[in-house]
């Protein structure tokens, strides 16, 4: 028999993941739920010679069909895969958190409730009758302060106990008479049919009109008649709001329990969060403070990540290259192997690895902001301005995350519950200049703008943001015209992020980058190297090689943008699988060609570009087709190949047009 399974369910900001980390320690594995881009965190808990699998479900406010996160959580809980469910509740926020609890009880699942962050509740003078809560619900309730590890042993004991007892619960929620009557009616329809979920629960969800459950029912073999009967029911009651009545009955249940067990001070205690917020989301100060924070983030990223650590990394890679070259020569390796190792791998992949420190620092700081609760404030202060472009404040968070990498940026659009906001936010994210593009800019900046690096970089980022906002406005008025949107968001209390969590998140992202450098980018560079040295009759790295032929073929397309050499075209082409490969490919091609002169990549670029073409090249890189990973994510998130192709093409067209405009206008003005 496999390990017993424990699943964690809870609201966002309830400290669920912190508890997951406390329970599993370093024993974790992060993957994806099948078919969707929702992250699946699994870990192992060892207790008294037994091993348990712990599954961290996505943070959600309710189990329903609103978002992929909710569907994943709902399906998992219903699948009965878990032997017990830990419902993590934020103690300062019991009323709202109990809504999710009521849904879990509605499903009748084996539960253990953890009242987390009781220290914060205490500070706010909120008193909770833990014993009473447990008694009324009939569910074990344990108080804990997960980030300090308090309550860990009690939780484990209760959880193991609950697994042994295999308890299930009767649905405690009282629906109103009318709704109850309809639930029975649906139950009648479904009786004896093969349905994927428990019948009582399914009937409630049908009356509630949960689109996911309805879809599942249609897919399962309940017969045309039953499907039609359900459709008739909804058609007939299209003016009734059973959905809200069901939600309301859950709320009444949650409220009655909170009323009986929670007492709050007559006057809310002013917290540190209130004090900080008075400044941070102030009408006048909010945006300037945001700008300062971002400026510090980028400044620190570049000083520490690039100038200090990046330099060290470059030095080490160069040294390693020399060492390998000597080693290979000493064992009389064939010429091609040396060429491949040095030109292909060291110059190509090395160009990417040099940026690991920079990306590490950037992710550390973005992760810190995220965990501290500041990101929600950023969304809040930007909402007003974003609205002018037809977006909401939360879109801004996705954009900021996109600065690190567009993949999580696009995935974070999932927190937006309406389709229009979500789609537009995803469509514009590729214009957010991601970490992988930084190497490209820094090389060009070193070659042409050594004294104005920060300014050029800042301008590129700003241009990306401006293009994104303009496109948002255009999409809003064309593709998604007339669709409404709304904005509701929780501003969680500020919390000092734990070093462990920040490091863990950073590592997830950075290791992803390193793995990509080792696989996709390695593969791209290898393919490029092979193309560059065949056919044997051609001079390697020359225009006569196969790669040269491809580049020459593409060259006319990029000629109006001023990219005069075939290498430049090929590098853009190589950037579609992975943006890091642009520099990698340029490194390999130019290093190959300039090997005998012994000049570095920067020198090679200085010889092949002008200030003007370097600008148009950087803008092209900024705007053109995002990398394969981003396109893949867009495909998964939109579930549409057509949208994915559309994004690949329109971004390319936009990048090309911008690069051409810069080059042509610049030439006219005499900057050529």
């Amino acid at each position, binding site marked *: 028999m496999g390990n017993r399974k424990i699943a964690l369910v809870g609201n966002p900001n309830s400290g669920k993941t912190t508890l997951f980390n406390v329970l599993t320690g370093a024993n974790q594995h992060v993957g994806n739920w099948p078919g969707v881009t929702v992250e699946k965190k699994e870990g192992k808990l060892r207790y008294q010679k037994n091993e348990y699998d712990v599954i961290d479900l996505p943070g959600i406010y309710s189990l329903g069909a609103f978002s992929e996160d909710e569907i994943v959580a709902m399906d998992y809980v219903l699948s009965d895969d878990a032997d017990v469910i830990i419902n993590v509740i934020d103690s300062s926020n019991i009323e*709202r958190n109990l809504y999710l609890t009521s849904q879990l009880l509605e499903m009748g699942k084996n539960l253990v409730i953890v009242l987390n962050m009781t220290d914060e509740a205490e500070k706010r003078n909120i008193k909770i009758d833990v014993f009473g809560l447990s008694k009324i619900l009939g569910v074990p309730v344990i108080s804990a302060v997960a980030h300090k590890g308090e309550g860990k042993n009690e939780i484990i004991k209760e959880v193991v106990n609950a697994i042994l007892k295999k308890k299930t619960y009767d649905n405690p929620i009282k629906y109103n008479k009318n709704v109850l009557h309809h639930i029975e009616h649906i139950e009648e329809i479904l009786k004896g049919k093969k349905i994927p979920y428990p019948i009582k629960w399914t009937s409630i969800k049908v009356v509630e009109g949960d689109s996911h459950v309805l879809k599942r029912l249609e897919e399962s073999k309940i017969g045309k008649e039953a499907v039609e009967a359900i459709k008739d029911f909804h058609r007939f009651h299209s003016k009734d709001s059973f959905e*809200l009545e069901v939600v309301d009955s859950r709320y009444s249940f949650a409220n009655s329990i909170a009323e009986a067990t929670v007492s709050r001070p007559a006057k809310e205690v002013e917290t540190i969060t209130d004090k900080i*917020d008075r400044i941070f989301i102030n009408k006048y100060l909010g945006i300037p403070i945001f700008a300062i924070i971002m400026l510090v983030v980028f400044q620190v990223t570049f000083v520490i990540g690039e100038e200090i650590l990046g330099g060290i990394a470059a030095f080490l890679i160069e040294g390693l290259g020399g060492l390998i070259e000597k080693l290979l020569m000493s064992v009389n390796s064939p010429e091609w192997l040396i060429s491949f190792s040095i030109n292909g791998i060291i110059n190509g992949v090395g160009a990417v690895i040099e940026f690991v420190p920079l990306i590490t620092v950037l992710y550390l700081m973005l992760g810190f902001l995220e965990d501290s609760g500041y990101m*929600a404030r950023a969304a809040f202060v930007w*909402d007003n301005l974003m609205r002018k472009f037809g977006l909401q404040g939360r879109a801004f968070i996705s954009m900021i995350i996109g600065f690190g990498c567009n993949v999580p940026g696009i995935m974070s659009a999932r927190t937006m519950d309406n389709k229009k906001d979500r789609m537009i936010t995803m469509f514009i994210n590729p214009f957010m200049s991601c970490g992988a593009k930084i190497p490209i800019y820094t090389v060009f900046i070193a070659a042409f703008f050594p004294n104005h690096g920060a300014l050029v970089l800042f301008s590129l980022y700003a241009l990306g943001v401006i293009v994104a906002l303009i496109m948002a406005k255009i999409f809003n008025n064309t593709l998604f015209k007339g669709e409404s949107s709304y*904005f509701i968001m*929780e*501003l969680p209390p500020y919390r000092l992020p734990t070093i462990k969590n920040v490091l863990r998140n950073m590592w997830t992202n950075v290791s992803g980058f390193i793995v990509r450098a080792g696989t996709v980018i390695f593969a791209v560079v290898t393919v490029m190297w092979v193309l560059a040295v065949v056919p044997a009759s051609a001079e390697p790295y020359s225009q006569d090689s196969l790669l040269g032929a491809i580049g020459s073929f593409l060259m006319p397309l990029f000629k109006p943008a001023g990219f005069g050499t075939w290498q430049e075209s090929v590098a853009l082409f190589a950037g579609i699988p992975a943006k890091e490969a642009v520099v990698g490919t340029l490194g390999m091609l130019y290093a190959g060609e300039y090997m005998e002169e012994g000049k570095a990549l920067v020198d090679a670029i200085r010889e092949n570009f002008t200030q003007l073409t370097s600008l148009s090249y950087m803008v092209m890189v900024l705007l053109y087709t995002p990398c394969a990973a981003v396109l893949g994510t867009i495909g998964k998130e939109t579930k549409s190949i057509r949208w994915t192709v559309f994004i690949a093409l329109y971004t390319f067209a936009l990048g090309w047009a911008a690069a051409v405009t810069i080059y042509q206008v610049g030439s006219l003005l005499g900057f050529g």
Partner: protein
Amino acid sequence: MINYLNTLRKGEKAKIESIDAGKEATKRLYEMGLNTHATLNILKNDIGPILASVNGNKIAIGRGLAGKVAVSKIKE
């Protein structure tokens, strides 16, 4: 007297009477604790979203949506 959430001022307290928004938005409001009869403290209403506290928990609500939430003021 019935007011709408977007017209309340900082420091005022109110009880939610009814919500006349789309189903999805209404459900979202419910989930965030803004169900009927919940009491709110208005923390901020100048530019941008309205910030209200529900049980000491801060919720930002867009102006458009706030205009669809009918409330009655509670006098201290």
